[in-house]
Structure formats: structure tokens, C-alpha cells
């Protein structure tokens, strides 16, 4: 088995930037939605002022956090498995697994305070 090359289609300066929202704890959808979360709204992210502070309203909870630059960037890698068919067609030395760099993360919005319970359920604009 040969070495697995780490490939990157982005080129040196073009890596697409992904984002991360990080919060403590776990978000649970209501039971009836557990199996089809796709497209379900989680909450609303708001930036109230020109500062890099953010609020995240999920259900009747409000989290407060800030945008943080990561000490070290994170690369988003995708493991690509070549099917047996593809392997036979390609040269014998091409490996069955490839690792592609598909994005980079340099900043995240981090929420580390305790959630504040909102008394009314009015949505913030």
C-alpha cells in the first residue's frame, strides 16, 4: 500500500473558509423531529452591536458569546474511498483512500456562558 497523498484543490491562498459555532452542552430536538433534523431551524444568531459579541437564541434560551480567532487553523478534510472498479481502472499504485482538503477554519463563534432563560418567547430581530 502506498502513501496516502493529502490533496488540495484550493491552491495556496484559496482554501474556502468554513465556520464553527461552538457551545457547551448538547442541543436536543423535540422527539418528533429526532429522525429528520435536516432543514430544521436550530435558532437565531444575532450580533447586537459593532462589537464581536453574539447572542444565539435556541428555543427559549439565549446564549452570549464572541467571535474568536483559532490559535491554530483547522483544516476540513474529506476521506475519499475509491471503489474497487475505479482502482482497477487507475494505475496499480493509486491508493484506495485519498484525503482531500476541502476547507479551512480560522475563526469560531464560541458560547461559553450559561444560557439565559428568556421569559417571553418573542423573537429578536
Amino acid at each position: 500500500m502506498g502513501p496516502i497523498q493529502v490533496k488540495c484543490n484550493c491552491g495556496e491562498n484559496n482554501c474556502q473558509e468554513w465556520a464553527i459555532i461552538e457551545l457547551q452542552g448538547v442541543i436536543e430536538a423535540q422527539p418528533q423531529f429526532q429522525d429528520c433534523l435536516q432543514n430544521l431551524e436550530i435558532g437565531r444568531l444575532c450580533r447586537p452591536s459593532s462589537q464581536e459579541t453574539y447572542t444565539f437564541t435556541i428555543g427559549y434560551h439565549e446564549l452570549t458569546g464572541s467571535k474568536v480567532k483559532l490559535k491554530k487553523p483547522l483544516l476540513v478534510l474529506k476521506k475519499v474511498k475509491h471503489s474497487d472498479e475505479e482502482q482497477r481502472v487507475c494505475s496499480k499504485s493509486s491508493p484506495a483512500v485519498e484525503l482531500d482538503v476541502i476547507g479551512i477554519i480560522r475563526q469560531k463563534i464560541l458560547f461559553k456562558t450559561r444560557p439565559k432563560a428568556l421569559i417571553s418567547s418573542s423573537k429578536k430581530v
Partner: protein
Amino acid sequence: MDKSGDAEAILDLQPKSSISVAYHSDFGPHEDLLLLELDEKLLPDVLSERVSLRGEPDEEAVFCTQSKTYAIKFVGNSNSVFLIPPSNSSSFPKNAMDCDEQNLDQPASASVLKVASGNLELVEVAPRLDKLKLLLSQKPFTIEEMSEMETFLESEEQSSVYRWNDLIGQIQASNIELRSGLEALKALEINGYWRIIDENCMDSVLNMLLHNAVLNDWSLDALPENELVSIMESDGFPPKISNHCLKVYGNTVDKEDSVSLWKLNEKQVCVHFAKRILNNGKVKKDKFLAEWKNKIPNGMQASFEMLEGEVLTERIGVEIWIHPFSVSSLPSTPAKRFSILFKERPKWEWKDLEPYIRDLKVPGLSSEGLLLKYTRRSQPRPDVEPIFSAR
């Protein structure tokens, strides 16, 4: 104004605005998506495709740049980490329906593709080169093979011999570290395969070289490369092998005219002959010294200090004996190295121990650190040498 959603919308969120965050239409575990934390300085190598993962399926993969090797560790995160791709991500397009809905009145939204449970990080490690010696020792290059070298025909896949491309798939080291390892083993690429030359073969080449030097009245400090290689060829030694012998046992000499000259390295040559004498195990020291003096070329001086890291001395009764114990035959990982050293001898003085750990390199650990970690230091009285033993 580009109203693209997703990562951009999050990162460029303007003051006094908000966006909806939802699960992506393709939300799921996406176990094929990994996050790797990387030092900024390694980014250029990764982005220009100069890194690879190396190792066999039964080994833990290592991450290799051109010159360094890193272990890959997964670090879990108890926080919920929502991963949001850029909206024009080719790997994860949103539904066509979403695009239709995107008009100037529609507020931007962001979609969470995956909740990451942690990320991978890299820890620099020493290259794992012990396996290289193991592989290349399976079939050392012999005198018989040397005589067949010129007529070598690659008729079928050779077994137990390795090409560069085989080695990079099996040895967990970067290209530069692998080349270094091959050089340390004095390996030679013959007919596309990297080979260790066996002791008897090297001995025959060296002896023929010395013999020719005497015959032609050449100084061992100024051997003419071309003439020597040519004469050795007529003696049945392929140029590639003679050249390798010069590299192993000598150094080039700077000269003004275009004649390439070599000077034999006294230590390399003397150690070679010492090892030949010790091939049969332990010898009485004075007997050894007499035999050694006889074997080495005229004009060379052997000193016992040359054998540090190659022999161990012990007192049996009133006599002093020595036996071969070569650092090059020991494992390169510290834990295994110290284990073998203490099995050989439970207690060591620093001056005897040092040559056997001098070559140990662990990123982030100094030699003091190594001693602290793997040995117990005791000094019964302040006026005696400290003793090192197993932890």
C-alpha cells in the same frame, strides 16, 4: 451585494443583524469529514500537496511532510461544535429549492452540516526507522550477487527486496528522514532496489581496495578515484560497489585539478577490522589488540577509543575480555533501547552509557530528559561516579 448564506453569513454578520441557523439539508454524521488542527507553518506544505499519510493498515498512520513525521491524535471535545460550510461549497450544495428562495427580501441563513466530536492534532515524532533495517536485512547483498550484478535481468518481481516506492509505503518517515536512514545504514540502490551490503562483501571490496593501493603505491590519503575504480573493475568489482566502498570508508579530498581523490577514514577502516576479529564473540583484550594491530593497513593507528559504541569490556577473574555490542544493532525507540541496555548490563557509568544513547532523538526531549524518564540515577558517595540503572 452577495447574499450567499452559510459560513460567509456567519463570519461576516454585520452589526445589528441576525441570521437563522438551521440543520443543513444534508445534515448527518459525515464520518468521512475530519477536522485537523495544523500549525500555520505547515499550511503551505499541505495546500501545495506535499504531505502524505504513511504506514501499513495495521499501524497507526503518521503524517509526513517532506522532512518531518507526526503522529496523529484525536482530541475529543465535549462542547457541541457546529460545522458550517461555505454556501458555494461544491461538496455540499444546498437544495435547489433554497436557491430559488434566496431573493433580496429573504434574510440570510446558515446551515450546520455536522456536529464535530473533536479534531485531529499532530505531534512531532522521531521517524520510525527500525523497520527499515529489518526490511533491508532480509536479503543483504552478497559477493555472489555482486558477481552477477552486470548481467542482472529483472525477470520477475523480486521478493524481500525493496524499491524506493515500496519503502515510502511501508516506512513511517518523511522522504528526507528516509534518505537519512538509508545513508545511516550505508545502503546502496542497486538495479532500483535499496540494499544493505553484507559484511563479507564489504570486507572483500575493502581488502581489494587496500591491496591495489599497495600494488600501485598510492597513499591512503590520496587515492585516485578513476584509476582505482577502473582497476577494481578489472578485478571483478563493479564501479558502483567500489564507489560505495570509497564513500563508506573515506572522504573526498579537495584538489585543484580535476582528479578526484579520496582519503580513507582511519576510524571507519579500523573499526571494520575490529568487527571482523570479534565476529566469533568475546576475546581477551590483549589478544584482540595484537590481532587488530596486525590486520589494519600500514600507516594507520588503531586506538581502543575508536570502539566506543561497538564493544563492551568486562573483567572475568584477573583477565579483561571484550565482546561486540554495537549501537547500530539496537532499537531506535528509547524505551526499547534502554530495556536492551539494562538487560545487557544492569548498571552503567555515564562514560560507558553515553555512546549507546548519543544517537537517540525524541522531539521535545533533551538527553537529560531521556535519562530522567528511562533511568534511575544513583550516586552512593559524592566522590564516585554516578550509576544509571533501570527505572
